[in-house]
């Protein structure tokens, strides 16, 4: 149906996301090249260490992907609910799934004093959608629907898989830093034969550590950037699905404002899960600040501005 569509993708967002992923790929290639370079330059067999890191890192990534729904539900203290227990919530999800032609995710409610929501699971068939009871109390049904549409867009975009794949590199780099660090500590006194070999191994470890630190830092910033773009595109798809960008906007304003007012003590417990949340459990970083570069979510102003674009796109008269 190419005839007329009001749902054209946002080209700017696509270009920026492609660039980010290209850079991540570039870092990956540079990392591999550096490791091979170190290996050949020092005739050292760091292959075993790297292989070890890849296996452990890969196992960790696949494990967290596979059990992401169970881990997230456990961490959030959420409980799955039946349609009888939460008819309105299930009704919203049912209708959005029929509109978007998606399988229905499992629905869970977490008992929390923070208004928030997340969706996770390794694919659409194993997805679980969770909202906090506080979110349901504070938002109107339209706003709640906007938030749920945002979360379901995360499922449709396979964001859990994409972000797991993207952070794979950082996981390996982090593991190598640790391995190299301990190698440096204990490698010197180990049962190696000659002194020359020992020194050589020490240098290899140092270089490996330096490379890993740089890779970790760069990929960390890139992953956060990617995460912010994924949030923006989930906002966009969610608003297009419900046809009500304004409801999502008012939900964002409410939720961000409310989260800012909550004392930080409670928030610390929720921090590890920020990447999957609708709005992160900390003050949204102001635009242009250093914190904004490390933030998993875009600033509130940015999200509202992008939703304005959707609104204009939808109200344009046809033809």
């Amino acid at each position, binding site marked *: 149906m190419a005839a*007329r569509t009001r749902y054209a993708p946002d080209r700017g967002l696509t270009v920026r996301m492609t660039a980010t992923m290209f850079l991540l790929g570039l870092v990956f290639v540079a990392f591999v090249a550096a490791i091979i370079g170190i290996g050949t330059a020092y005739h050292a067999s760091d292959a075993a260490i790297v292989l070890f890191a890849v296996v452990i890192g890969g196992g960790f990534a696949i494990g967290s992907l596979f059990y992401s729904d169970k881990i997230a539900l456990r961490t959030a203290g959420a409980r799955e609910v039946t349609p009888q227990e939460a008819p309105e919530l299930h009704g919203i999800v049912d*209708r959005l*799934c029929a*509109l978007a032609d998606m*399988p229905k995710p499992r629905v869970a409610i977490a008992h929390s004093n923070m208004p928030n929501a997340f969706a996770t699971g390794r694919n659409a068939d194993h997805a679980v959608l969770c909202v906090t009871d506080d979110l349901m109390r504070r938002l109107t*049904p339209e706003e709640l629907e906007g938030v749920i549409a945002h979360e379901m867009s995360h499922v449709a975009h*396979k964001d859990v898989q994409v972000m797991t794949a993207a952070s794979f590199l950082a996981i390996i780099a982090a593991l190598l830093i640790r391995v190299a660090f301990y190698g440096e500590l204990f490698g010197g006194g180990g049962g190696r034969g000659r002194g020359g070999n020992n020194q050589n191994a020490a240098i290899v470890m140092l270089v490996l550590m330096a490379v890993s630190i740089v890779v970790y830092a760069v990929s960390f910033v890139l992953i956060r950037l990617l995460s912010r773009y*994924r949030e923006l595109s989930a906002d966009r798809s969610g608003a297009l699905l419900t*046809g009500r960008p304004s409801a999502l906007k008012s939900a964002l304003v409410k939720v961000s404002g409310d989260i800012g007012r909550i004392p930080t003590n409670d928030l610390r417990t929720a921090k590890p899960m920020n990447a999957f949340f609708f709005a992160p459990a900390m003050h949204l970083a102001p635009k242009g600040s250093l914190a904004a570069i490390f933030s998993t979510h875009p600033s509130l102003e940015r999200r509202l501005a992008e939703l304005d674009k959707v609104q204009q796109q939808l109200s344009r008269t046809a033809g």
Partner: protein
Amino acid sequence: MGFLDTLLGRTKPVQPKLDDLFALPSAAVTLDAGAGFKPTGSGSVCFRPVEGRSFSDVQKEIQELLDMSSGKEGGLPVEVTKDSYGFTWLVSSRMSDELDALVTDLHAVNSSLVDAGFGPQLLCTLVAFKDDQERRLALVYLFKRGTFYPFAPLTGERRDNALELQVKGTIGDDLKFEPDLARWFPVWGAPGL
């Protein structure tokens, strides 16, 4: 959704499938013969309104179009209701033996929305049936899947699953039924039912 779309985090809105709706009249005959359910003559289209002038213009046009056609043939005017989930229902009421005309009405709404570029906003179409014991039944058409499912509400928010499955068996191949039972979502209090 393709690999590239996944990578770039974009969704293509799903366009509705309209044509399978015309299988309804012949399936209704089978349903009457097999289970004793007759059409009540009312049917409705459910869609998601979009913010802004553009959509309200389209909606007004559709309403005028349907009012005109039903007025000519002595039918009732089209009724517009909003449900608690923020969806709009256009209910068309005909005589109970005019199922063909009803389906044409419903199709007019669908194609007007699609022509205006709002096809992805269509949720479902519902045609109501009743038997001698006044049991209510609806055949719901899912636009995005191009499939039907039966919905038989009881008092309270309970549904008669046995009847629904019986209807599916009775009609059999005359209609394309939704194979995934998880997508037979309830439409409690749907207008026109």
